């Protein structure tokens, strides 16, 4: 069964450093998403991406964040200068139409 994959599973970084979280969506999917989940809190929408551009973004997705689809398979989330409050699980999701399928997540720890 096709699935969304994410790397790394855990990323530890120092405050102020740049991180890139990587995702490989399901191959025939056209819509891609990033969500995050701070420990003990709700899953929160960050951004959606379709046809090589951002479709929607939340207030969380400020200038420190960017997304890219550098090739036909990868979808990345970059945080330019990490803050302590960026520590969270980051989930990538993809969909063909409505049903969004999530990856296993990357746990980002900012120290």
């Amino acid at each position, binding site marked *: 069964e096709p699935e969304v994959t994410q790397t790394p599973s855990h990323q530890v970084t120092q405050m102020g450093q740049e991180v890139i979280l990587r995702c490989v969506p399901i191959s025939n999917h056209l819509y891609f998403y990033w969500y995050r989940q701070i420990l003990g809190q*709700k899953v929160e929408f960050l951004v959606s991406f379709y046809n090589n551009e951002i479709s929607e973004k939340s207030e969380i997705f400020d200038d420190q964040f960017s997304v890219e689809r550098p090739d036909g398979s990868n979808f990345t989330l970059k945080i330019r200068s990490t803050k302590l409050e960026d520590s969270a699980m980051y989930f990538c999701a993809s969909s063909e139409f409505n049903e969004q399928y999530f990856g*296993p997540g990357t746990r980002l720890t900012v120290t």
Partner: protein
Amino acid sequence: GESVGLHLPTLSVQEGDNSIINCAYSNSASDYFIWYKQESGKGPQFIIDIRSNMDKRQGQRVTVLLNKTVKHLSLQIAATQPGDSAVYFCAGADSGAGSYQLTFGKGTKLSVIP
């Protein structure tokens, strides 16, 4: 903005019994809903979805009910098994606005007692 929330934070059921997990939403424009299951250390796993033009949808051992009048949906799990133990989230979207941005509830933890 939209808010999707859950009535019960925890639910314990005996193996073999039926489970009902509830969810309320605040945005009457929400027209698409998904239930996800999240096991410890894993991402949300799609269970079942429903559009607002339906009030009931069934899957394998699961049923989702939608009551638009009171902005409430529920997930029913038949013959609950130990493998069903997880946190269950409802999520909604206003697809009529061209958005599939999902707004999640906080989650209900389901514990199955063997």
